[in-house]
């Protein structure tokens, strides 16, 4: 009997213990809180562990002690879509491909455009023709020498490919003039043409290699860049080796490995143990821990993308009531959204052009945060009793947070706002392609950090509907500003046009720009030359180990 009582008591203790444990275990399975919990443990153990690991890693990685390392392992969160330059249309793929290829021009880290494979170039009078003088003696990875035929071939390819539309839309054709010169004809004088000439999409590929194996080129690319393709273990890693016959000095880092690590917490652990040398994107929650870790180096820059609240400007509630759009604009407090959605690691974006893009109006201020004014405008529009709003957005990370905070701010002024989270493909089809929404939260990314890429096709009436101008704005004055921005070759004129466009969009409350996230990178402290880039581009040629 006594043993029974003891056993029952013990069982009760175990049960209570189990209850408490299950309460902690049953927290919502969101990635962020778990990441913070793990990261907190890391700070405490990290400093302790770091001492142990530094000693161990120097022993682990250097085969011959005293040798400077010459390989770098980058952790990426997603594989590139392809290694073929004409198929790339997202920043991650651009960032990986920029190491394999060169274009006629090259964009340096500070944004300046310098000669790449073209030594010099000249514009025609009306700026619709550009003649390039090609550099001689440039070698491809397969040993061939670059000729004018390769350049013409590469441009023909890029122009024919639907993936490069954004970059090549202004180009008509590329022709050979002679063995040293080629001429590019444009459809219209295009302001940001030089940044397009430096893009991965217009890189020069080997005509011989691409023609020999068009399908396989995506997995066996041949370019002129500082790195050549070595191997791609699908779902696992991609390896590049330094190209010794590069037309500039060969790269200092000889082996470049892109390791796919989909979980950000695991990636940070791998960085701390030294299994990877760099993370190309960090989570906002990990920022403080990385900065506190002496073995790691952190850098950040605001990205060339931004989140915003968009209205359907041609159909529905907000199309018919401009004052209601103004009310929403004044009800949103951008500062709080930055804190709540990106943990303070993000910047306010008052205009529809992110701060790092050329053409962004300096000192621009968006709609003031004025809840009283918002309520007044609602009453003037005839909705003093409030109105039901369904904010549609995608279910992932930052989108849902932005939407929730905005919804709460709208409720404060009397809107009955609900958030509808949609799966990405469903959102793309309903909201983006068919404009089936009244109000939504979305984001744009500028593929090139220039205002034209994030303005023209998005707000010009020529592109109404169908996935580009999905906010359905049709305003001839705005069209005019956007056209000046696109076709003018005078920088000052372009900047002024974009300022006027931003002002007009603010007056009409076409949409409400909110914030730009930060692009953060983290790497081992002895890897130098690493800088955060607004387009997430990592040009490994500049890196070296100390």
């Amino acid at each position: 009997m006594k043993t029974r009582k003891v056993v029952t008591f013990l069982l009760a203790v175990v049960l209570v213990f189990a209850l408490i444990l299950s309460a902690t275990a049953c927290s919502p399975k969101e990635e962020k809180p778990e990441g913070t919990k793990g990261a907190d443990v890391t700070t405490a153990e990290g400093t302790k562990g770091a001492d142990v690991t530094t000693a161990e890693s120097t022993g682990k990685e250097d085969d011959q002690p005293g040798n400077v390392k010459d390989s770098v392992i980058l952790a990426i969160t997603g594989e590139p879509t392809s290694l073929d330059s004409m198929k790339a249309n997202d920043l991650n793929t651009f960032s990986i491909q920029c190491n394999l290829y060169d274009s006629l021009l090259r964009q340096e880290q500070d944004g300046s455009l310098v000669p790449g494979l073209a030594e010099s170039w000249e514009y025609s009078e009306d700026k619709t023709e550009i003649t390039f003088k090609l550099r001689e003696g440039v070698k491809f990875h397969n040993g061939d020498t670059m000729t004018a035929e390769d350049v013409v071939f590469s441009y023909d390819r890029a122009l024919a490919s639907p993936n490069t539309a954004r970059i090549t839309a202004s180009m008509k054709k590329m022709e050979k003039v002679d063995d040293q010169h080629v001429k590019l004809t444009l459809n219209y004088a295009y302001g940001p043409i030089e940044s397009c000439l430096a893009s991965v999409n217009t890189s020069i590929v080997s005509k011989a290699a691409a023609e020999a194996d068009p399908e396989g080129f995506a997995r066996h690319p041949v370019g002129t860049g500082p790195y050549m393709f070595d191997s791609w273990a699908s779902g696992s890693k991609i390896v590049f080796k330094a190209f010794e016959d590069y037309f500039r000095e060969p790269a200092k880092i000889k082996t470049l490995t892109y390791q796919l690590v989909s979980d950000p917490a695991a990636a940070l652990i791998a960085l701390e143990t030294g299994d990877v040398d760099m993370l190309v994107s960090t989570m906002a929650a990990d920022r403080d821990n990385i900065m506190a870790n002496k073995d790691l180096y952190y850098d950040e820059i605001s990205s060339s993308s931004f989140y915003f609240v968009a209205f359907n400007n041609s159909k529905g509630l907000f199309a018919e009531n401009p004052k209601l759009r103004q009310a929403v604009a004044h009800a949103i407090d951008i500062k709080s959204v930055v804190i709540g959605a990106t943990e303070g690691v993000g910047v306010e974006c008052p205009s529809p052009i992110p701060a790092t893009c050329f053409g962004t109006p300096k000192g621009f201020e968006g709609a003031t945060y004025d809840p009283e004014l918002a309520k007044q405008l609602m009453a003037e529009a005839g909705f003093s009793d409030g109105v039901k709003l369904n904010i549609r957005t995608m279910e992932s990370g930052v989108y849902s947070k932005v939407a929730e905070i905005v919804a709460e701010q709208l409720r404060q002024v009397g809107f009955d706002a609900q958030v509808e989270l949609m799966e990405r493909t469903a959102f793309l089809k309903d909201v983006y392609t068919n404009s089936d929404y009244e109000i939504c939260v979305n984001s744009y990314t500028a593929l090139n950090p220039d205002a034209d890429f994030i303005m023209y096709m998005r707000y010009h009436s020529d592109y109404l509907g169908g996935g580009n101008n999905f906010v359905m704005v049709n305003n001839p004055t705005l069209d005019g500003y956007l056209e000046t921005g696109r076709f003018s070759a005078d920088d000052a004129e372009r900047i002024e046009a974009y300022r006027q466009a931003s002002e007009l969009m603010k007056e009409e409350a076409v949409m409400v720009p909110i914030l730009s996230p930060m692009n953060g990178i983290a790497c081992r402290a002895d890897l130098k030359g690493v800088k955060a880039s607004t387009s997430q581009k990592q040009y490994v040629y500049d890196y070296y180990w100390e």
Partner: protein
Amino acid sequence: MMIPVILGISLIIFTILALTPGDPAQMILGENASLKDIEILREEMGLNEHFLIRYVKYIGNVLRFNFGNSYRTGLPVISEILTRFPNTLALAFFGIGLSVVIGVPIGIASAVKQYSIFDTVSLGVALIMTSIPAFWLGLMLLLVFSLNLGWFPAIGITNWKGFILPIVTLAIGSMAVMIRMTRSTMLEVIREDYIRTARAKGTSEGRIIRYHALRNALLPIITIIGINFGLQMGGAMICETVFSIPGMGSLMITSVRQKDIPMVMASVLFVAIAISLINLLIDILYATIDPRIKSQYEKAKR
């Protein structure tokens, strides 16, 4: 039985993929593409035909071992799957294996020593193991064994060492069920009359447990093993994400998100076939272990 099941699965998945929103052509060209380009690509890919026609064409190709090219990479689907399949298979196999090797003996010992301290502790531990979320466990193991102790690599499976942590994570997840199931079936069996007879005959306790009791208790245990294996094949997804292992789970999720229909179909078919084969094996094992079932098959043959 297997063939109609696999055909049925393929039809259901294909229908779901066809009916859910999302346009593969748009996924390939990206958000910046114009509607015109998307439409041209759809024509090229044959997406505008009725989905039943597309299904029949697909099955026709499959029977000739042509699984098509992935929409995402443009490469044959089969090469990608053959790279990833062994990883998931190995993970599932060793994970379940470990949980059986540790869980079943613990369950037996628990049953034999019912209500003892050992029993209570093992039940408590089993409960803890079920309650732990898999990815938290994976991350904690990574932190302790990889970061702090440096015994195992943090990512990937370049050598056998990389397999240990994910296998342990998987095993802990399924061990609890193994322990409890073994314990309860053993308890039932131990109370049976034939065990009493065996004891009366003077057989050693050890032989009774190992030979008589265990064989009878084994049937439900093997069923659980079969089911668990199926579950792990379908998605040691969490393990694959945390430990960066290229496996079927992450492949399927990425492909579904991108509406890479050939890849999804082929992955599902592969996994379905693997699970069906395992279950077939389990059925055969039943016959080997239980003479009653074996005689049923033999009777049916006559």
